[in-house]
């Protein structure tokens, strides 16, 4: 394992020190329990958004704390959901009296920890609503499984709901916006290489020089299928077709197309992926109203990418375009 780290046990703590030092103008980092809040929290009268999850997905979630996006993020250990005490402390720190939304990616660990946190917060009188993100079409959706994973749509939900909250919309409306994003977004990911969890010290899975995994998550989980590597044209087809067919996205739809890098794939490749995706969507009569290209929800140093499509309407487009000022996403201010 080669990484720019000191001790595998201290990766998250040292990363948080770096974030605190770098972005002190935007965020405040609390240690024990770990959470990151915007410097002006709590914003009175504004619905607060709290998210969190394992570390290793940077800039998500800590990099999305700030004006127009999250009020707080709770970083867990690498690929490990944070704990209820972190979420409780973060929730209290950002509660501005208008209620708090927990944005929870649909993983058993995240769901249970956020559930315990919400119970704790509610028992002390804080109004908390939880929203699940489960946009990964690589996973079978069934009542008898853990359901779909939350992946790329999380970034979009945090941005769009953050804008809604910034407009001082009430709790219920912010929650509705979250659900609307989730209902209209679908994602799929693939990996050319595995990642290595620092504390584990070796790659989570082994891939041959000519193999790739299709349908991976963001935690180094193996995907649904191992295949021979292929030209990116074919890879994009393998990813985008199930996405488009699932919602389904239809001719005439306008979408936000999000091409995400897994952490080890450079921008030059992501632009080629985007080029292929645009051709595919052209062929289906689907317009790309907005796009986001880059490493926003990563899986350590994994090489690979994911594609997320979100069906846009005027409301979502307007909220996407609204100003945002966070370490990881910034425009309009």
């Amino acid at each position, binding site marked *: 394992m080669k990484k720019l780290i000191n001790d595998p046990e201290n990766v998250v703590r040292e990363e948080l020190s770096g974030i605190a030092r770098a972005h002190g103008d935007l965020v405040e980092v609390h240690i024990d*329990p770990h959470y990151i809040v915007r410097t002006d929290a709590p914003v009175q009268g504004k619905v607060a958004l709290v998210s969190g999850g*394992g570390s290793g997905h940077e800039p998500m979630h800590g990099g999305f704390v700030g004006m127009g996006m999250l009020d707080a993020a709770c970083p*867990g*250990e*690498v*690929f*490990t*959901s*944070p*704990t*209820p*005490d972190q979420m409780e402390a973060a929730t209290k720190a950002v509660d501005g009296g208008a209620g708090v939304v927990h944005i929870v990616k649909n*993983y*058993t*660990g995240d769901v*249970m*920890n956020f*559930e*315990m946190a919400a119970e704790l917060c509610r028992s002390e009188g804080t109004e908390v609503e939880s929203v699940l993100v489960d946009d990964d079409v*690589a*996973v*079978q959706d069934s009542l*008898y*499984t*853990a359901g779909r*994973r939350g992946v790329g749509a999380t970034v979009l939900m945090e941005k769009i709901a953050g804008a809604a909250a910034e407009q001082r919309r009430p709790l219920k409306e912010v929650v509705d916006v979250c659900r609307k994003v989730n209902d209209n977004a679908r994602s799929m990911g693939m990996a050319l290489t595995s990642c290595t*969890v620092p*504390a*584990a010290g070796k790659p*989570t*899975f082994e891939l041959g020089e000519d193999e790739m995994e299709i349908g991976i*998550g963001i*935690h*180094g*989980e*193996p995907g*649904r299928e191992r295949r021979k590597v292929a030209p990116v044209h074919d890879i994009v087809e393998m990813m985008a077709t199930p996405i488009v067919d699932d919602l389904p996205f239809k001719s005439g739809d306008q979408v936000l197309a999000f091409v995400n890098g897994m952490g080890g794939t450079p921008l030059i490749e992501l632009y080629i992926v985007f080029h292929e995706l645009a051709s595919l969507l052209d062929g289906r009569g689907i317009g790309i109203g907005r796009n986001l290209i880059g490493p926003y929800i990563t899986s350590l140093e994994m090489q690979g990418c994911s594609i997320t499509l979100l069906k846009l309407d005027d409301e979502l487009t307007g909220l996407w375009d609204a100003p945002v000022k966070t370490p990881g996403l910034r425009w309009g201010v």
Partner: protein
Amino acid sequence: MPPSQLEVVVTVTHDDVVRWIRAFADVIAKNKDSLTDLDSAIGDADHGINMNRGMTAVLAKLDGDGSADIGALLKTVGMTLVSSVGGAGGPLYGTLFLRLGAAAAGKEELTDQDWVAMVTAGVEGVQSRGKAEPNDKTMVDALIPARDALAAAVSAGEPFGDALRASAAAAEEGMKATIPLVARKGRASYLGERSAGHQDPGATSSWLLMRTAAETLGDHED
């Protein structure tokens, strides 16, 4: 047939419980890598790391503990796991120990009946938190057989040590039985059919918990 109620036999002391917890921490540390390896195959390569972080935190808490209340002790263990493990393991093992603690609230000594009641409450907690059924390929597949074997042995009047050993053996069998299963809960469920052929990491740590109980509490004189 109701259990024989000849006299109340103290089976487990506060010190015993502390020894059990310490031994479990030790076993987790020793099996950290192998648990993580199991989790690499069908999960995200952290189960051993997570459990070890939690049990290390628990050990630090034990050092400062002066009370003799077994319920309080187990509650502390549960709270510490909840706030240090994270992932699926944290709430599940945390809830398990919190429920053990609640069932032992105020007690400074435990009978074998108490133990059965505690384990029953703990397993119930895991199920109500995680909603897993038997054969979902989770820790529940080790815990339920363990609880059932324990309850049966105690109600049949078997010596407590034998009951704990029967419980551990049942956990081991349940753990092994997870290998062919297709996961329906937790992260392994994302793999669908590809999850078959691998032993569930959580069932493995649950077996270690039961085996440690047999090893540390099972030599107690009845």
